[in-house]
């Protein structure tokens, strides 16, 4: 409680300095949200005075925790800033993203770097929205596919996104990532993963060359999407954004459709719709590779989160049951793709 109050005080002082035009700004409510493994998300309501009276606004504060000393840092070093720079540049291109107000890299303010962004009203698509609103289902699927096709169709050079770094055409980055996945599997003392070992041996022998390089969201699935009034209104969690093979996003998304969101969209229809909207053919062999990468990536994240949940002094209890529920389903889906 004391920690929360201290954080609220610090945040209020910070926002007052950032928004000096907002008179008598105060944080009237702060609630830790339930989403996020590598970061903490807070919903903050601020109010201030304007000529016509008091005004209030909802803000999202994303505090970047990183993965501590987990192997994920070594495997895929992530910087805090670039994802928000991408959000700023993608804002206004027709892809629904929240407006970023400010990014604070100084850990002294809240203990970690954080970002302040617009709160978009909506419900998480993957939490039953499409099921509870069957009348919107067709439009939601269309939006879901169209947004992905739009991301892959963006001219990233014109948008100035080259700073994300071009992947090596010899797939060195992919080989490094696979080696990182292998380390997670081998170092994990809580739950040895022979299925993952089998998937990794297959991956190492089947690395494809990308046909084209596009902006990739990196974590495109129904739980990162908000919907309102039958339309998708926000695509969130850009922490894995990169330049790379668009098949990686499609494979990632397909893996999610297989492990719990079958009711949203059948994979065949998803691919067909993507091909129509993006105007490109999805190469099924490369897609298979990227689906296995997605499975191994998810298992890796799950193992790291499970480890963090077990070893943390203040564990997020969800990590202790969500991953044992998810990981076998992911392994099962990947194994079936490879014929076992």
């Amino acid at each position, binding site marked *: 409680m004391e920690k929360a109050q201290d954080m609220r005080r610090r945040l209020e002082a910070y926002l007052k300095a950032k928004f000096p035009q907002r008179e008598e700004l105060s944080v009237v409510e702060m*609630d*830790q*949200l*339930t989403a996020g493994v590598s970061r903490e998300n807070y919903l903050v309501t601020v109010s201030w005075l304007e000529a016509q009276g008091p005004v209030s606004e909802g803000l999202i504060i994303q505090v970047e925790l990183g993965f501590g000393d987990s192997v994920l840092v070594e495997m895929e070093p992530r910087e805090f800033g670039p994802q928000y720079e991408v959000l700023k540049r993608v804002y206004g291109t027709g892809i629904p993203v929240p407006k970023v107000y400010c990014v604070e890299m100084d850990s002294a303010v809240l203990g970690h770097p954080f970002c302040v962004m617009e709160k978009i009203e909506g419900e998480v698509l*993957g*939490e*039953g929205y499409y*099921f*509870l609103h069957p009348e919107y289902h067709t439009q939601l699927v269309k939006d879901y596919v169209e947004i992905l096709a739009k991301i892959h169709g963006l001219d990233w050079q014109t948008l100035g996104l080259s700073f994300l770094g071009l992947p090596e055409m010899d797939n060195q980055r992919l080989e490094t990532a696979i080696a990182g996945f292998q380390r997670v*599997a*081998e170092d994990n003392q809580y739950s*040895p*993963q*022979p*299925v*993952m*070992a*089998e998937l990794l*041996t297959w991956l*190492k022998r089947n690395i494809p060359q990308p046909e084209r390089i596009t902006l990739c969201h990196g974590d495109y699935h129904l*739980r990162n999407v908000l919907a309102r009034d039958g339309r998708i209104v926000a695509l969130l969690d850009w922490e894995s954004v990169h330049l790379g093979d668009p098949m990686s996003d499609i494979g990632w998304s397909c893996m999610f459709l297989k*492990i*719990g*969101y079958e*009711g949203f969209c059948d994979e065949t229809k998803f691919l067909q719709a993507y091909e129509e909207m993006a105007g490109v053919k999805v190469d099924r062999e490369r897609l298979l590779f990227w689906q296995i990468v997605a499975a191994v990536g998810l298992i890796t994240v799950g193992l790291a989160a499970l480890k963090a949940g077990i070893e943390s002094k203040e564990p*997020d*209890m*969800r990590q*202790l*049951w*969500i991953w*044992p*529920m*998810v*990981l*076998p*389903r992911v*392994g*099962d889906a990947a*194994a079936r793709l490879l014929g*076992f």
Partner: protein
Amino acid sequence: MANSITKIMLERSAETIEQVIIPNLTGAFALEQAMSIATVLRFLAPVVEVESQDVSEENEGMREVLGRVLEVLRGEEALSGNAIRNGLIERLDSEFKKGEVQPQDVREENHNLKRILMETINGLDALTEDLSTDTMSSLRQQIRSVLRQQLDHGVADAAGWIAAHVAARVGSGTAQLPISVW
């Protein structure tokens, strides 16, 4: 092995969290934490005995396939100077001898066998060019059938987790449909 008292204790604990603690919580994060504890307890209550049986079956399957790998590798005398082959033989030998000398707890054995199975998969992959295609294909098929058994058990467990979470949500009056898998 769980007995009925353990099962009842776990269920009552879950009910207390759902009906006494959760209604008095206000923060979304605290509520999810309490719900998670109730889910864990609901999952544990019915599965302890079943899991124990699954684990024994898995151990049997892994011992069989690892024994087969050991037999094949020992027969590959042309590779007697191959460090990977020799290391794998030594590792497998040592694990089998350990089991003979001192019976292991079924879960501990499962953990050890899975770790060795991982090492075996990696070792065989490194020997792909040294072993005949038929040998590799046969061993891979046997390994994959053991992996399938483990996956089936895992998927059944996952269904148990979903059911536990649904029960926790219904028990606390916070059910929403559909309850997503994660």
